[in-house]
C-alpha cells in the first residue's frame, strides 16, 4: 500500500513516527501550517515556523525516506490576534517557494469578522499564486461553518476543484461534494472520524475527490490512521485500486495542481539504516551524538 498523508503536523511528531510511517507505506505527505497549541504573539514567530516547515522538517523527513510538502497560511484561530495578522503581508513570498503546495489551513474557527478578513484575503492570494486551498472547518457549529465556508469560497471566484474542505463528517460531506470541492477527512482516535465511519462514507459517496488524512499533531492522534483506513477499506470489499486512489492518487491529483510536488524516491535512502552521520541541516542532525 503506498500512502500520501495529505494532512499531518510532523513538527509535533518523533523520528519513531517517521520510521513507522515509512514502514506502513507512507512516501509523501503535506504538513499544513497551523496553530502550535501555545498561541503565537509576533509575526516573527510565524516566519520561523514557516521556514522550519520548508527547511528543517523537509530535511528530517528525507532522512526517513519521505517527501515532505507544506501549506502556508495564517490559521483562523490566530487570525483573531491583531499582533499576528500582519503576517498576511509576508505570505505571498512563501507561496512562491519550493514545496509549498497550497494555501492553508484557512477557514473558520469562531466565525469572527477577523477570520472573514483573513480567509478572504488568503483565498485571493491563492488565486494570484495559482495554488490550491486547504480549508479547516470549525470544531463547533460545524454545519453552519461549512455553509459559510462554501459561500466565501464561491464568492472568491476560485475553482471549487482547487479547494479541499477538511475535517468533514456525515453531516456536511454532501454539502461539500455538491459544491464540487474536494472532501477531506481527518481520521482520529475517538473524535472527528474513525476508520469504520470513514469506510461507510466511502461506500455512500464513492472514492472520487476524497482525501483521507491522519491530521496527527501534538494532540492525541495516530500517524498510521491512513494505513488503518486502507485496511478497513479492503476488509469492507474495496479493491486495491480503490485504496490506491484514495490514499495516493487523489492527494497527488489535488496537490499536483500546485505544480510543486516532488514524489521521486529520496536518493540514497535505505529502509532500516540509520541516517548518514554527516547529513545535517544548517548544522543540526537527527542523530544525537556519535554512534557506538
Amino acid at each position, binding site marked *: 500500500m503506498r500512502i500520501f498523508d495529505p494532512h499531518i503536523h510532523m513538527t509535533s511528531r518523533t523520528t519513531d513516527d517517521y520510521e513507522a510511517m515509512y514502514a506502513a507505506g507512507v512516501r509523501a505527505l503535506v504538513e499544513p501550517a497551523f496553530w502550535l497549541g501555545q498561541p503565537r504573539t509576533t509575526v516573527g514567530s510565524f516566519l520561523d515556523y514557516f521556514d522550519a516547515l520548508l527547511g528543517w522538517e523537509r530535511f528530517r523527513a528525507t532522512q526517513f525516506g519521505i517527501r515532505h510538502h507544506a501549506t502556508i497560511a495564517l490559521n483562523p484561530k490566530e487570525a483573531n490576534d491583531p499582533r499576528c495578522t500582519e503576517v498576511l503581508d509576508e505570505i505571498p513570498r512563501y507561496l512562491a*517557494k519550493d514545496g509549498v503546495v497550497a494555501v492553508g489551513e484557512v477557514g473558520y474557527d469562531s466565525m469572527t469578522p477577523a477570520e472573514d478578513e483573513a480567509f478572504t484575503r488568503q483565498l485571493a492570494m491563492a488565486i494570484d499564486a495559482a495554488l490550491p486551498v486547504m480549508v479547516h472547518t470549525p470544531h463547533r457549529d460545524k454545519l453552519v461553518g461549512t455553509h459559510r465556508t462554501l459561500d466565501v469560497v464561491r464568492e472568491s471566484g476560485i475553482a471549487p476543484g482547487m479547494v479541499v474542505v477538511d475535517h468533514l463528517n456525515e453531516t456536511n460531506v454532501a454539502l461539500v461534494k455538491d459544491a464540487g470541492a474536494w472532501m477531506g477527512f481527518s481520521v482520529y482516535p475517538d473524535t472527528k472520524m474513525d476508520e469504520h465511519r470513514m469506510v461507510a462514507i466511502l461506500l455512500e459517496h464513492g472514492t472520487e475527490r476524497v482525501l483521507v488524512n491522519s491530521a496527527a499533531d501534538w494532540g492525541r492522534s495516530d500517524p498510521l490512521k491512513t494505513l488503518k483506513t486502507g485496511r478497513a477499506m479492503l476488509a469492507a470489499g474495496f479493491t486495491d485500486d480503490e485504496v490506491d486512489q484514495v490514499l495516493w492518487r487523489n492527494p497527488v491529483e489535488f496537490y499536483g495542481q500546485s505544480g510543486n510536488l516532488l514524489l521521486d524516491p529520496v536518493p540514497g535512502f535505505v529502509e532500516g539504516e540509520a541516517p548518514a552521520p554527516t547529513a*545535517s541541516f544548517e548544522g543540526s542532525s537527527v542523530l544525537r551524538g556519535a554512534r557506538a
Partner: protein
Amino acid sequence: MTTPAPTPAAGTTPPGLAAGRPDALAGLLTDEQAAWLATARSEIAADPGTAVGHLARAGRAVGRTPLAPAADPAGVLHGTLDDAARAHLVGALAAALPADGESLATHLTETYQRGDTAERRGVLRGLDALALGGTVPPAVASAATALAADALRANDQSLVAAAVGPFAAAHLDDHAWRHAVLKLVFMGVSLDAVAGLDERADDELARMAHDFAAERRAAGRTVPDDVARIAPDLTLRTTHGKDA
C-alpha cells in the same frame, strides 16, 4: 539513511563547470527552460521586484540536475541547473539596478535572509557570476561578505560549498577564507569546490592543516586526502588507529 554522494578525488573535476560561470548552462537547458529563463530575465530588467518570485521558482522551472554529474553527483561542489539559473537571474537583477550597488546589496541581503537553502545558494552563485564579470561594487562586496560568512557558519554542504567560489576568493579576508577551506575538509567536502585554492593557499593554512591532521591522528582517525592539497609536505601514510 540518506548517504551523501562521495566527493570526487582531487584533480578529477573538469574545469569551468561551477554554477557562477557565464557558460554554466550552455547546452543544458531545453527550449522551454531557456525560454523561461529569458522571460524571467526580461521581467527582472523591467521590474527588479519580480526577481524574488523568479528566484523562488527556478528549481521548478529548470530542474535541479547537477552541472557536473560525473564528478559531482549531488551537485554540491559545482552546483546544479537551478543554481546556475539563479546566478543568471542575479546578473539580470544587477544590470537592472543602479551601478553604485546600494540597491543591489539590499535586494541580495533580503533575498538571502528570507530565502530557503536553494535561494541562498543562488545568491552566492550569483555573486560568483558578478565577481567573474568584474562587476562587484563596494556596497555589494561589503554586504555580500556578510552573507558568505553566514553561509560558512552553516553545515549544509551545498551552502558552504557555494560560499567558497570566485566571490569568496576575491573578497573574503585571509582568516575567514582559511577557516572556510578547513571547514570543507572537516565536513568531507572536496576542495574542488574552492575557487582560487592554489593562488590563496598560504603557510598559515598549511599550519592549520598540519594541526588538523595531528588532531585526527591523536584521535586514531584517518586524515582526509584533501589535507595534502593545502599542506603539501604532509605525510598521510602515518595515520594509524581503527579507521586507518
